[in-house]
């Protein structure tokens, strides 16, 4: 069985409600994460501010943090190898990482609109 691990940046919650905005990418990714689990992939997800030991204990993750700081997060590992840094890939990309067949359309479309960043709002 393939393993799929996600090492999230320090978020006080994975919903992002404590940040200035709810990141729609996080919403989408959470759904994709559960989809992978349902496909029989062994999935794990760690938050730096809650399980820092998991980060320190994984040599690949620790070395990425040593080099790039938290900017390298989120890290995505497949079978222990880093396949993606600093972003949340789309579902079809995740499927490719795992050598799976082209996935069906996501059940939940990414949410755009109010949750996203507006020019001049100060967040970007």
């Amino acid at each position, binding site marked *: 069985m393939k393993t799929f691990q996600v090492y999230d940046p320090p978020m006080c*919650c994975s919903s992002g409600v404590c940040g200035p905005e709810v990141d729609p990418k*996080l919403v989408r990714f959470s759904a994709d994460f559960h989809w992978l689990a349902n496909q029989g992939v062994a999935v794990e997800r760690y938050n730096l501010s809650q399980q*820092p030991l998991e980060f320190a204990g994984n040599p690949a993750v620790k070395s990425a943090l040593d080099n790039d700081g*938290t900017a390298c997060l989120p890290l995505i590992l497949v079978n222990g190898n880093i396949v993606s840094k600093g972003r949340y890939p789309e579902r079809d990309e995740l499927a490719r990482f795992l050598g799976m067949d082209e996935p069906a359309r996501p059940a939940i479309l990414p949410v755009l609109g109010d949750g996203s960043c507006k020019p001049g709002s100060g967040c970007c």
Partner: protein
Amino acid sequence: MKFLTQPPRFLFFTGKGGVGKTSIACATAIHMAENGNRVLLVSTDPASNVGQVLGVAIGNQITPIPEVARLSALEIDPQAAAQEYRDRIVGPVRGVLPETVVRGIEEQLSGACTTEIAAFDEFTALLTDANLTAEFDHIIFDTAPTGHTIRLLQLPGAWSGFLDEGKGDASCLGPLAGLEKQREKYKQAVQSLADPQRTRLILVARAQASSLNEVARTHGELAKIGLRGQHLVVNGVMPESEADVDPLAASIRRREQASLAALPGVLKTLPYDQLPLMPFNMVGLRALRQLLNEPDGRGTAVEDRPVDIEAPGLSELVDRIARDRRGLVMLMGKGGVGKTTLAAAIAVELARRGFPVHLTTSDPAAHLSETLSGAVENLTVSRIDPRVETENYRQRVLETKGATLDAQGRALLEEDLRSPCTEEIAVFQAFSGVIRESTRKFVVMDTAPTGHTLLLLDATGAYHREITRQMTDKSMHVTTPMMRLQDAQRTKVLIVTLAETTPVLEAANLQSDLRRAGIEPWAWVINNCAAAAHPGSPLLRQRARNELKEVEAVATHHAHRYAVVPLLSNEPIGVPHLLELLDTKLGQAT
């Protein structure tokens, strides 16, 4: 005193900092012990003056008080409890992961929620472990958990997310992660709280509309969760005898009595006690015994000499602010210290001097913006309703994030959205549009985010910066709200406090929180200062004398520059009364 009759096993005192709940809790503990009960007093007072008050060093262990038979005390430092939690999480990776990474984790764990839950964790054993407290008849707490904490503990989803998998969604339960074995204990603790046979909750307020409204909110929130054994105590009421001898005391009494006559409806049904304003600080056994035991002797104030104070007034700060001709002025401080009024006074004075000013307030009463709109040339007034902003933000989040969640997850997200951080972020987002105007004019705000919120906002800013860095278009400019506030050329943060121990301490905490975010407060303002009002009433004179050491501490220890605003006999509504706040000489006795 109704709140002392037939007391249950647990008594909790709750109310804002500075209303006197620690004093009343101490007095209650002494009173009950001297009436033959074995009493444990538990204090979370950040000033930790219980030890000082009782004349014995108390720490995080049950300590018998030699001066009072049958009384023991225990001090819980919520900050230390939160630090212990942070150390537990961060300690093992310190020196292993890069220093910047470790600091980022610590900031995530530095919110108000972490402190609160960590303190509740310390309470749990006292509420549930019968062996630990077997030798006591009553346990008195000088604080109570908030509705937010209790509701989180009641949500089954919070536990399954955080404890069973260790990867749940609830931000505010973070501090309990890894404590699964205690799950049953938390449940029992909440059950004890909700049982009027075992627990009485005493709401402590001052005789001011804002304080009473605040207590009414707390009452409603905790009653909804099931904490029904509630009492109301109004502390520090101006006695009639003082009103007879001093016009300032008389007008304070009139204002207080009017607030009490207009008591919020939900509070009217509660058993109710009133405690008079005392001439002395509540330090020492004698003072504390008098608070509840000697109604005849307590009104006698000893101070008959006038009290004088040499301190800069608010107009001197405005002089300095006016030099820059534009910029952002933010007033920060705990609720009830008068931020909105002072923001209005500063804005009105700047406008009167001919500068364009935008005053923006989150004043829930709204009467300020109504009385000022159009009243002064150059002054624009706008109002942001925190409730509306927070509700909009909640709806937005629930529609986006909430759409994908099951019922349990949704309940959890809804609770997260009731956390104090959420309101702060929602309001700050609404304000951030106005902030940009400060390049052209003065923008005066009566609210500001805490350092913790700014650091969280900036963490996202850092993420955005990183994204920008990876983009080919290097011309894109990134400014986070924190970067704006760190710019001393553009932003002046004024910390507002009162000349009393707990408010000054809370203001100092606020300041260190801001410093953590790289923001240096520009000045402190001490509001409602009796000493600056040159009162004739012996009681107010005694209080004025007590204020001097707090003013001194602010002047020499806490602030780069400061101003003192006198206690006024008129409620500062409308332009002429607001301008009175600027001049300390106006309160001079004639």
